[in-house]
């Protein structure tokens, strides 16, 4: 079989978002090398990412979506679902690039590499989300992760950045090795590296069961590490705290989206037969307790933090738990329930992307070079002194909390209602989720309390909000989508549903 990469011009259209981002990344490197000023790199990278995202959003509706060249199909899926993920990833990465444009300039950290890393990591994330072969999963994962490791360790001379970066790098490499070992075992058990072939072999019962189960567990462990699910969450607070805030934003939204995308694809294509999707014997038996532990630990640990960035890190762990509830719902044999669950997870990740950018972006906006806003104390009274800078923060935490009519509320609603629709087996998980999000309300509201009802300690250094058009633009864009998705969710959930009905 000789695959080919030649085809009509039209057959390249579905690959355009991916190619645009890759070419944009290389263009950034060239522009950075030839120009002196760095200010326009933020504009260039965010324009590239938003263009790719907009194109992917159009393709996600199914318009102009033709089969790609035959050589691509075994490794990457470029159907509606992949395009939806592309759009989400590009949106998160583009907003992070905007935040970086403001933050790096303000804190005298401006260097062109950072934008190239954002764009290339986003490319890796898109490959990962579209991967249909164990080989492309691994390549996508590494492309994404290598960029993120370096973004975490980017701030030179900061011991916290070095600590976070090294921890993330070592644990991440270990997780990648586990994933690779799992892939090897799955290949040994089924004789296939492509997900469709593995799924066929599993359904036919040809696979060696012991090898397959161990391989599946290792593969899923490697992937759940990336979404920072308990017990693979240890690196998250340190890496999130040590990284420069735009990198933290990128990690929390883009990496999570891509990892959940590939988790969904692997489960739906390979392990959706009755045996491996059974609550007692299959992967749900591993993922359901994991989801519960992630929600509980994430929320309780977040409530104990004094540092807002660390609080948001634990809150992102908690959100991984809520999304895992949606993933576990795929155990259901009912096609309707599965599609609702998949579209719920897709909507949740899009909502989470814009809400989290809003929260981290406001944290960036409330500090400046002299003093960065990191702890609750730094936020004290900022809302009364600078209502405009604090307003997006309020919207962001309300959405993360799941307060109607924001996007976050509907995300939780769709995921939990799919879990309930699947039957009584997951009721306990939904109850755990709802109860633990009540704990979540405590620490999210605490931000608002500090912003508006506290006063700074007399004599303490005060964080003065920074001024940057980039950050304002990012906040306006994400704030718009948080409200838009919360008030008129129909176009988004319809898009997710139609993408979920055609796995590709």
């Amino acid at each position, binding site marked *: 079989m000789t695959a080919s990469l030649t085809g009509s011009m039209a057959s390249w259209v579905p690959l355009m978002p991916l190619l645009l981002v890759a070419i944009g990344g290389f263009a950034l*490197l060239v522009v950075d090398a030839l120009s002196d000023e760095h200010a326009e790199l933020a504009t260039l990278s965010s324009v590239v990412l938003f263009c790719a995202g907009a194109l992917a959003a159009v393709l996600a509706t199914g318009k102009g979506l033709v089969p790609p060249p035959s050589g691509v199909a075994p490794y990457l899926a470029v159907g509606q679902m992949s395009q939806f993920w592309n759009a989400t990833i590009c949106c998160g990465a583009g907003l992070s690039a905007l935040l970086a444009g403001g933050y790096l300039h303000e804190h005298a950290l401006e260097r062109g590499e950072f934008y190239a890393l954002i764009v290339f990591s986003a490319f890796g994330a898109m490959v990962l989300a579209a991967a249909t072969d164990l080989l492309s999963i691994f390549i996508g994962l590494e492309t994404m992760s290598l960029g993120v490791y370096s973004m975490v360790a*980017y701030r030179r001379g900061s011991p916290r950045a070095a600590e976070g970066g090294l921890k993330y790098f070592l644990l991440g490499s270990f997780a990648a090795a586990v994933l690779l070992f799992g892939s090897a075992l799955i290949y040994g058990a089924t004789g296939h590296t492509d997900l469709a072939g593995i799924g066929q072999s599993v359904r036919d019962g040809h696979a060696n069961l012991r*090898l397959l189960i161990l391989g599946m567990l290792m593969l899923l462990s490697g992937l759940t590490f990336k979404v920072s699910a308990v017990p693979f969450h240890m690196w998250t607070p340190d890496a999130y705290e040590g990284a420069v805030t735009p990198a933290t934003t990128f990690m929390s939204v883009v990496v999570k989206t891509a990892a959940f995308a590939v988790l969904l694809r692997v489960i739906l294509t390979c392990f959706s037969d009755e045996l491996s999707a059974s609550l007692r014997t299959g992967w749900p038996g591993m993922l359901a307790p994991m989801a519960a532990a992630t929600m509980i630990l994430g929320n309780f640990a977040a409530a104990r933090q004094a540092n807002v960035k660390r609080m948001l890190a634990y809150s992102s762990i908690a959100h991984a738990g809520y999304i895992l509830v949606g993933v576990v719902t795929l155990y259901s044999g009912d096609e309707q329930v599965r599609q609702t669950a998949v579209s719920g997870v897709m909507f949740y990740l899009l909502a989470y992307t814009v809400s989290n950018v809003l929260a981290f972006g406001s944290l960036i906006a409330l500090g400046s070079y002299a003093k960065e806003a990191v702890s609750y104390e730094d936020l004290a009274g900022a809302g009364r002194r600078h209502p405009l800078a604090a307003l997006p923060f309020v919207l962001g935490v309300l959405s993360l909390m799941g307060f109607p009519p924001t996007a976050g509320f509907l995300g939780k609603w769709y995921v939990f209602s799919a879990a309930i629709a699947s039957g009584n087996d997951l009721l306990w998980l939904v109850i755990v989720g709802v109860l633990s999000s009540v704990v979540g309300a405590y620490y999210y509201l605490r931000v608002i309390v500090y912003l508006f009802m506290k*006063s700074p300690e007399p004599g303490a250094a005060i964080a003065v909000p920074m001024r940057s058009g980039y950050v304002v633009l990012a906040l306006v864009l994400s704030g718009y989508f948080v409200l838009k998705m919360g008030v008129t969710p129909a176009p988004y959930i319809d898009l997710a549903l139609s993408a979920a009905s055609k796995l590709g």
Partner: protein
Amino acid sequence: MTAGGEALFAFCALVAVLSALGTVIVHSPIRAAMSLLAHIIALSGLFLLLHAQLLAALQMLVYAGAVVVLFVFVIMMIGPSVPEPPVLRGMVTKTAAIAIMVVLTAILAFSLMPVHMPDIALGPCLPGEGAECDQFGGVGAFSQSLFLDGLVPFELISVLLTVAIVGAIAVARGRSREEVAASQHKRDAQAKAAAEQGAREQAMAAEVSAHGGHG
């Protein structure tokens, strides 16, 4: 499979496992690098037994020839006699780690037990098997799968290598002296302005709280 092949497999596998252990256990970095070298050579022996001649040659050239040599250069540059690292972990942690290792190994062994191994070392091609068997693992067959069947992952890896280089530069490169000097000036002015602004804010906050906190 021939008896000679089996013996060679056993030898290479034993060397590979022992040298892998050696790489992580020994304290001296230079000995660890040498263990790694032994491991790589043993691995390429295993590749040879599977008729992957080109892969075996590349393994020797790239890893034994280039990568390990680079490691040794770096160790020589830093100095081979790194002082013993202090023992940070207590007996409890060590015991727990060993216990987890044993359990994991047991699980792995249990899962691998039913696998029968006819193919650990392939015999020579039989007369009837034709050209495909002869060419397997050679340059032609290897290029076929690398540049035709696997062209997409091959291209994707080019981005992976780029991001690795850019990332390494981003982490290792500080700012150049000119950049630091240029920004320092700007920073000083900004910091001064920010300090004044901070003082104003402080006064404002004090005023707000003095008036009952409803500013």
